[in-house]
């Protein structure tokens, strides 16, 4: 099932749902014809869209709003915080091309502080599915909840079949005593590659798909801290994302760990097509594994699919 199919099914089954977009229709192309007046395109007005979504929610609606993540979480930040956050309304933000998925767009479109910004808003929940299968397993729960929610939309197909989603819980893919990789979103794909290489090199490796970043699965983080090395892997600034969440959690429980963070440190990434961006920024599975190992290997990096969308 695709994102659009799930949204169509959800909105048809429940009149409360309103689908909105700030003229970003990549994920909702067929919905205007299907939903009629329950599809609202406000044009390129992220702020007005969010304010209007708050108004619709006041009337008992559940607006699912779409825009490029950079503009949804930054241009409209104060509207999200002030109109959705303060009022604690069930507005569901679907952020398109988050993180490295903005590939060739350049720094204006790079949403790599979105997790940091959204998790800083009281009442807001934050989710980052690993791929399309994960996305459609998580969204029904996210849309059903009464809370405001921000989802990093990632509809890439990886072929991995995920477990059912349990609210607020991470998906434990494997456990290991040498290394545990914690990741979310797009880089899950590369983490799978890295885990294979590390295992072939003889390490006992754990992998955790965080899924929910707020609330974060504290127990999963504490369990991962028992490995000799924790790795946080994210297409986000180092500040405010998963590395920060891990640090906050460990401090809260008076624990510490050796943590190797993969993230963007105080800089934007070089714009290019996604496979080249991953290679350039050191985020391919092979590069991740070799940095953890501390040596080069003869393993071959599988081809990385280009992104489908380039808006």
């Amino acid at each position, binding site marked *: 099932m695709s994102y659009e199919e799930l949204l169509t099914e959800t909105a048809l089954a429940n009149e409360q749902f*309103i689908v909105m977009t700030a003229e970003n229709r990549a994920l909702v192309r067929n919905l205007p014809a299907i939903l009629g*007046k*329950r599809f*609202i395109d*406000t*044009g390129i*007005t992220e*702020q*007005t*869209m*969010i*304010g*209007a*979504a*708050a*108004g*619709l*929610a*006041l*009337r*008992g*609606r559940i*607006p699912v709003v779409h825009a490029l993540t950079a503009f949804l979480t930054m241009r409209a930040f*104060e*509207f999200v915080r*002030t*109109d959705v956050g*303060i*009022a604690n309304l069930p507005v569901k933000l679907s952020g398109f091309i988050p993180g490295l998925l903005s590939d060739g767009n350049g720094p204006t479109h790079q949403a790599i502080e979105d997790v940091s910004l959204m998790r800083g808003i009281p009442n807001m929940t934050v989710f980052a599915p690993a791929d399309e299968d994960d996305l459609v397993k998580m969204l029904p729960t996210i849309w059903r909840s009464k809370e405001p929610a921000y989802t990093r939309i990632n509809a890439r197909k990886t072929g991995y079949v995920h477990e059912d989603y349990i609210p607020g819980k991470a998906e434990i893919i494997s456990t290991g005593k040498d290394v545990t990789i914690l990741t979310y979103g797009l880089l899950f794909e590369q983490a799978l590659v890295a885990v294979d290489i590390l295992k072939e090199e003889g390490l006992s490796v754990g992998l955790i798909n965080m899924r929910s970043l707020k609330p974060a699965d504290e127990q999963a983080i504490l369990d991962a801290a028992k490995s000799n090395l924790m790795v946080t892997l994210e297409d986000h600034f180092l500040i405010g994302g998963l590395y920060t969440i891990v640090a906050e959690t460990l401090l809260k429980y008076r624990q510490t760990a050796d943590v190797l963070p993969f993230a963007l440190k105080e800089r934007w990434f070089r714009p290019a097509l996604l496979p080249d961006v991953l290679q350039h920024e050191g985020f391919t599975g092979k590069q991740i594994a070799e940095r953890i190992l501390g040596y080069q290997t003869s393993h071959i990096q599988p081809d990385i699919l280009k992104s489908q969308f380039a808006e």
Partner: protein
Amino acid sequence: MQKIALNVREHIIRMATDGGCFIGASLSAVDLIVYLYTDFLNVNADNLDDPDRDYLFLSKGHDVPALYGTFVELGLLEKERLNNHLSLADHIYWHPNTHIPGVEFHSGSLGHLPSVAIGVAMDIKIRGGNNKVVCILGDGELNEGTCWEAMLVANAYKLDNLVFVVDRNQFQANVRTEELIPLEPLQDKFEAFGAAVKRIDGHDFEALKDAFDAYPFQKDKVNVVIADTIRGKGLPSIQERADRWFCNFSAEEIDQLLLELHGHAITELTSETLIVR
């Protein structure tokens, strides 16, 4: 209405001490707010949760003493609660919030409620309802780009169930609008955005009634009322004074101002003025 408005002005003056309030912007909006709640809007103590009620959104926010004063007169709010202004024991502070029955949405950050009002008006349209939605804007607030973004969207969605009312008191926070960011010709601007516009004296109840009796002004067009008002209206000692925007008066001054409101001598104000934002 005159009597109610006078009572509301008294409530406002009494809130302008022990921490103070935005008295100038409150006094300019009093007649508007009183008119809307006593004649135009179907809102009362018994229908605050009724989805078929009308909605008023106070976007400029600083005029909340005028709203609460009106609520007291309408029986939505106990008069004693106004004594809790700025007290931790209550939620009566410098901007509106939904802890106070009758407040539809919080405000304070300018340029937000036009879009929230649009969302409510859109839902009413989708459901085929007849409720009216009013959003009161400050004229200084019109500096915010989101007010104009909202006008574009309201026009696109033909929201003739929505009325934007501009409290045109000629002042930004500290400066006359026309000296800082000129707004005129304001009616032309709104008309160019597709609105049906009426410009009236915002202190004249008959003019207000004539204007709102014509709602909806034109099919498929968002309604705009530019209400020409006077900042500090009712108190000659602070009227149209740039430095009497936010006021925190002494108890003696409050007594004098209440007399001034009823036509007695103009108060000699000695309390500090505030020209910061």
